[in-house]
């Protein structure tokens, strides 16, 4: 990354090869859309070039790149939320036929596991911290850096999110 920062832009290719799968996995877990996740990976690397001057050799690169990925994902989430708020009745009729509609997907896909349904009932922030906690290379110190809180707070949020998931999961299982 330091080489990219000093102007050797071609070295971005090495970073891409190293992190593309992890970033794609993160986005895909968040939105379950292959096309969108691929676009978001691309956006991360565009932002890396744009903000390369903010990177310092003391930063842990994995935490830094996930910080960017998190912002990219959150911007996209806000954008799609805004779009959903702006839809009129005609759009609703259209959306019912649209395979990307989250609720419709839940209702129609019989193969969707209970846990997947439970995950979709979590808030955006709860899903995000659980997905980040799944990365073995990320300790809670780094997760705190990514989401902008202390290590302890990241741990508590992850615990609460997992607890919430457990409650929803067992409720769904009892039905």
């Amino acid at each position, binding site marked *: 990354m330091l080489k990219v920062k000093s102007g050797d832009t071609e070295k971005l290719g*090495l970073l891409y090869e190293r992190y593309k799968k992890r970033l794609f996995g993160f986005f895909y877990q968040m939105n379950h859309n292959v096309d969108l996740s691929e676009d978001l990976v691309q956006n991360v690397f565009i932002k890396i070039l744009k903000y390369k001057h903010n990177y310092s050799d003391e930063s842990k690169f994995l935490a830094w790149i996930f910080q960017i990925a998190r912002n990219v994902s959150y911007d996209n989430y806000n954008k799609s939320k805004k779009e959903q708020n702006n839809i009129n009745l005609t759009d609703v009729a259209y959306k019912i036929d649209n395979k990307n509609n989250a609720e419709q997907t839940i209702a129609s896909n019989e193969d969707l596991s209970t846990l997947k349904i439970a995950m979709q009932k979590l808030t955006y922030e709860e899903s995000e911290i659980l997905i980040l906690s799944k990365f073995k290379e990320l300790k809670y110190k780094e997760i705190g850096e990514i989401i902008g809180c202390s290590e302890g707070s990241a741990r508590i949020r*992850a615990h609460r999110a997992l607890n919430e998931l457990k409650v929803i999961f067992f409720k769904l299982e009892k039905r």
Partner: protein
Amino acid sequence: MDIIEYKELMMDYVAGKLNIEKKIEFEYFINAHSECLKEVNGLKLVWESMDSNSNSPEPRPEMDTQFYTFLNSETPKETTKKPSIFEHVKSLFINIIFNPNTGRLAYGIVILAIGVFIGNKLDFDAFNGAQNTETQIAEIQKVRSQLVLALLEQPSANKRLQAVNEVNELKEVEEIVINALFTTLNNDVNTNVRLATIESLSNFVYLPSVREGLVQSIIKQNSPLVQIALADLMVGIDEKRSITPFRKLLKKEEINSAAKQKIEQSIQSLL
């Protein structure tokens, strides 16, 4: 351990991020407190179910194409401060013409490059400026590829090093150049040349043939420096196919201890 520490460590335990010592201490505590054991087991069950539900598909090759198109479009903007094509060809000409060890072929190619360049200069008014520059770049690239092939055949290590460094200036690389680079990587007697070859090939790791060639080259390397450079590159591009040849390399008795340590670390990173 008390209840506060239990709460602090719970998520790390569930996520498998505790070290052995802490893990044993934690398990001892929860086995002694049935409520805690129940809570942890519930969370662990959900956490482990998440693993089986988190299978993401692989990103498609289109994503790579899109990225490298973007990267190619960004690279010239970053390199505008580099010397002009004319200055570069001139420096190449001076460098080669005044070196008594240079072969005839290299002379011929440089003269051809000058011919192409002068031809284009004379014809300049007939073309639109931007189109002309593009044509010039394409022609220079072609000449540069020929120059690389010619210089790689030279007996002087400096010339071969120059050839390998020339590859870094190529935007697109022909298969014949890639093959010549792998011949150099696997057979050149000079370690510096082989190291520079790895650096040059790292610019083209988006080509499956280059990745495959690099993996196959691992077992052929005897120099610890080259082995370490390859280990770094394989981790850099997350090439898991390199694990098997690296393990074979580790079994060799004559392996250098620093290289051995580096390879072991790299295998761990790749797993």
